[in-house]
């Protein structure tokens, strides 16, 4: 089926008794004309690439701009010391988000989810939960299918790139995907998944994309921390039975509308927000001098 609205998928789910992840899996099988095994094998590669990216992170690399690297390691060490404000799980989530975002900035291999800039959000919530609860790999794949389906709906109704809709479209979408994945892992209902997606997206509406010097580093890496924490809050609220007053498809449409209304300066052009601060401009100037490129 066309993954164009959560409401339409919900109707199919009610008619067939299938969960969101299974509908998304079958859609992929139809679209690409592949077997169930072949589709799941591809998703398994995606999951393993996330796991690998986390495992090979050491915190030793720096990005070519010098702005990114090492923070994931600091957070891991801080988490291991055990005296964190938010508890050990939260600290692990933060560390994972930083590590993944840095790995991307430092030219390591990551999984775009949905984009490279937002690659830290999904693994930041999935890896620590998988470790803590010893979740079997096939269950993790189900969560990834659910997330991919959510992203497809967002991409079809609104957008998933910072250039098109600001950071709300990029890390915001990643956060909504992660929230839906978490509810899936906890065996939540279709409606609870929709509520989690709606709440995750609502909470970041309007977020600008304002990368310093146009690089996927500042503030992108730390925005992934926000995306992950936001996803946990939304998922827990949904599992608690809390509902979004605005239905999920309407929230997605609102995100698209806000994205179109965002001034171009706040859509990845590096002309506004943090990129346009005195320090942001100074970084840009310094990098131009190093690379010898005229702006």
């Amino acid at each position, binding site marked *: 089926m066309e993954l164009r609205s959560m409401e339409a998928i919900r109707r199919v789910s009610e008619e067939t008794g299938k969960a969101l992840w299974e509908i998304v899996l079958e859609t992929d099988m139809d679209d690409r004309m592949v077997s169930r095994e072949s589709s799941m094998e591809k998703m398994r590669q995606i999951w393993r690439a996330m796991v690998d990216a986390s495992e090979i992170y050491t915190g030793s690399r720096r990005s070519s701009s010098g702005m990114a690297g090492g923070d994931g390691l600091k957070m891991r060490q801080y988490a291991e010391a055990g005296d964190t404000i938010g508890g050990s799980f939260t600290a692990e989530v933060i560390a994972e988000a930083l590590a993944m975002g840095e790995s991307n900035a430092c030219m390591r*291999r990551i999984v775009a989810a949905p984009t490279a800039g937002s690659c830290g959000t999904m693994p930041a919530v999935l890896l620590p939960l998988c470790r803590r609860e010893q979740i079997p790999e096939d269950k993790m794949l189900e969560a990834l299918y659910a997330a991919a389906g959510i992203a497809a709906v967002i991409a079809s109704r609104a957008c998933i790139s910072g250039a098109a809709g600001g950071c709300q479209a990029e890390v915001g979408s990643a956060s909504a995907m992660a929230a839906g994945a978490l509810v899936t892992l906890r065996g939540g209902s279709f409606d609870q998944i929709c509520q989690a997606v709606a709440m995750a997206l609502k909470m970041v509406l309007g977020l600008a994309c304002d990368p310093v010097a146009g690089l996927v580093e500042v503030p992108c890496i730390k925005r992934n921390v926000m995306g992950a924490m936001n996803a946990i809050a939304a998922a827990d609220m949904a599992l608690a039975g809390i509902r979004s007053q605005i239905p999920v498809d309407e929230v997605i449409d609102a995100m698209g509308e806000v994205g179109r209304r965002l001034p171009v300066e706040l859509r990845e052009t590096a002309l506004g927000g943090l990129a346009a601060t005195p320090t942001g401009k100074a970084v840009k100037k310094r990098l131009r001098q190093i690379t010898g490129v005229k702006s």
Partner: protein
Amino acid sequence: MIDIFDMLGPIMVGPSSSHTAGAVRIGHMARTLLGERPVKARLCLHGSFASTGPGHGTNRALVAGLLGMHPDDMRIPSSFDVAKEEGLSYTFETVDLGDVHPNTVVVIAEGAEGAHLEMQACSTGGGRILVTRLNGIAVSFTGDYNTLVIHNQDAAGPISQVTTLLSRQKINIANMNLCREARGGSAIMVIETDEAVPPVTRLFLGEVEGVTHVTYYEKEVE
């Protein structure tokens, strides 16, 4: 139709799907269309590729692609060293191509056996690419399909023979574009196919009267 593996994926070396993954694909496309191992390349960067390219590893990504690497190859950050080992020399320059996509590059490459290629391409987002110019002729293809690029003399005949050959091999044409410099001059047939085109079929295509050169890009396996 949205591919869910565009939503969760690609697996790629960072930091940017457009400036890094797309740049690798462009380099790889240039190597493929050159048809042999490149030994020399001039890379002319336009717009955002020129201004934020260095910070995104665009330069290293383009060279990595020319060396035959894919977007998930861990050697992309060290592609300049690999180029040295494999005898590929390269230069970068900044150009203003006017009103084209901001992430555009012109690749001028020479092959080990003397082949020459001038290809203009842009990275359109999410790692996707679009080739817009080939050896002076305006074209438009993405590499999302198996793609035959057939250089021929603009005259009656070659097109029907090429399509007949393909249909005999049960190769279905998804899209086909004819592009030429001027009437009677050099022309390019860009044929996107559902099935892969085996080497022997490509050899036959090269024998068709009026066809001067056949190159082929096989879409990345999933």
